[in-house]
């Protein structure tokens, strides 16, 4: 028999995406962000240049897509109840959802990047293949980090997981400002405890500069954080009993 998560029918994921994660409303929001990528939004003062403005929109779009698509992976639902009685653990079901969610996440990044590349010549820019690949890789890594964060918060069983996720992301974005005024130990805790979104950006810079040792250390940081959160989440999910 195939491994448990592979036994989940793909039709269940399709129905889930259509119904609520991201659902019609979510797809509309993502389409609006996609449209914003091809418009001259830099004239609204989002950045000094078209590139600046679109980098901001792209990062915001990544965040929104992760919230819309990856939020339900480890959250307890009605199917989990039935699956638990058919010998499939909540961890298997959650992991199957998380893995399947990578598909629409990657599709979103690809569409965003394609739109950006298609629009760039309109504003007198000629992006190179290398920079496009780097952009996709960085967005992909950020998406994975965010989906792992959502997975961890969903596994915690908190009914306020989406709000907590937003709080953690805001804290992450302000961490560089905060860490200047706190003791070294707390700085380390912030750096290693919070989602490594800035580490992903540092990783891109290190790869750009061909500083491979630094890049390897940063990649280890990102991989280690994701692995630790996933393992902790699976341990929590394995203890989750059916709510009957």
């Amino acid at each position, binding site marked *: *028999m195939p491994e*448990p998560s592979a*036994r*989940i*029918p793909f*039709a*269940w994921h399709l*129905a*889930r995406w*259509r*119904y*609520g994660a991201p659902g019609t409303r979510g797809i509309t929001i993502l389409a609006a962000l996609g449209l914003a990528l091809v418009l001259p939004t830099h004239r609204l003062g989002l950045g000094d240049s078209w590139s600046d403005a679109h980098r901001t929109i792209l990062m915001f779009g990544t965040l929104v897509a992760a919230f819309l698509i990856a939020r339900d992976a480890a959250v307890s*639902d*009605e*199917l989990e*109840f*039935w*699956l*638990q*009685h*058919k*010998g*499939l*653990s909540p961890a298997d079901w959650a992991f199957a959802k998380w893995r399947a969610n990578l598909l629409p996440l990657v599709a979103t990044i690809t569409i965003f990047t394609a739109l950006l590349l298609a629009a760039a010549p309109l504003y007198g820019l000629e992006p190179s293949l290398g920079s496009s690949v780097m952009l996709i890789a960085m967005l992909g890594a950020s998406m994975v980090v965010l989906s792992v964060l959502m997975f961890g918060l969903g596994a915690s069983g908190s009914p306020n997981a989406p709000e907590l996720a937003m709080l953690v992301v805001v804290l992450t974005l302000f961490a560089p400002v905060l860490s200047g005024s706190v003791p070294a130990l707390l700085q380390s805790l912030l750096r290693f405890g919070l989602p490594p979104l800035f580490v992903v950006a540092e990783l891109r810079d290190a790869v750009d500069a061909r500083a491979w040792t630094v890049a390897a250390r940063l990649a280890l940081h990102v991989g280690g954080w994701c692995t630790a959160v996933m393992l902790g989440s699976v341990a929590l999910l394995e203890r989750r*009993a*059916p*709510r*009957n």
Partner: protein
Amino acid sequence: MSESSIVVLQDLRVAFGGGKLVALDGISVTLRGGIVGLVGANGAGKTTLLRCVAGAQVPTSGSVSIGGVEARRYRQSVPLGFIPAQPRFPAYLSVAQFLDGLRQVCGNPAMTECERDLASAFDLERLADRRLNTLSLGQSRRVEVVAALIGDPDLILFDEPTNGLDPIAMTQLRHGIIAAQRPGRCIVVSSHHLDELQRLASRVLFLKEGWLVGDHSAAELSSDGQSLEARFLSTERVIHA
């Protein structure tokens, strides 16, 4: 009698709130297949007992085993059927997607004759494309019975399945439960509808405030002509006295 469906509860005790609320106390009973009815007032411990058998509730002390396997391990290793007091369905799936998907999760076993007969008797083909959240309570119960049978489990638990059902739906459900019987299968049904239970069960257990206060076979119940309701009420009075 197949050993795989023998449910053994040994000195089972479940307490909540650091022991302040005792839901079950000193329950020792062995269920050897057939349809077992579980009767008790609200708060008697019926749902907690079913949760323990389903491996969803860890006992404070004592043990529950099914076919010699601890209840939680049993649930994690083989399919079982559990029908909760309120239908619990994902809103986004159709009846066909739900049932076919569960079958796939169980490794696509061949449909048993009983499943096929019930699906046909319950007219599920007509409901196949309906979203689960648009079904009536009676229709939901029919889907649940067929879902519970997927994987051909040896143990099926019904938690007050007739609540809120009209007489026609109740009759259909009763026929469904009777049809689900087979050698080596244990079906436990908790219910407040004692007349329904009397028609169904080969054995009835009475629970009161967490204690097992009665254990009667169908033969015993029919021998003295006393209805299950009368017997239950007299048990309640004796305990009160």
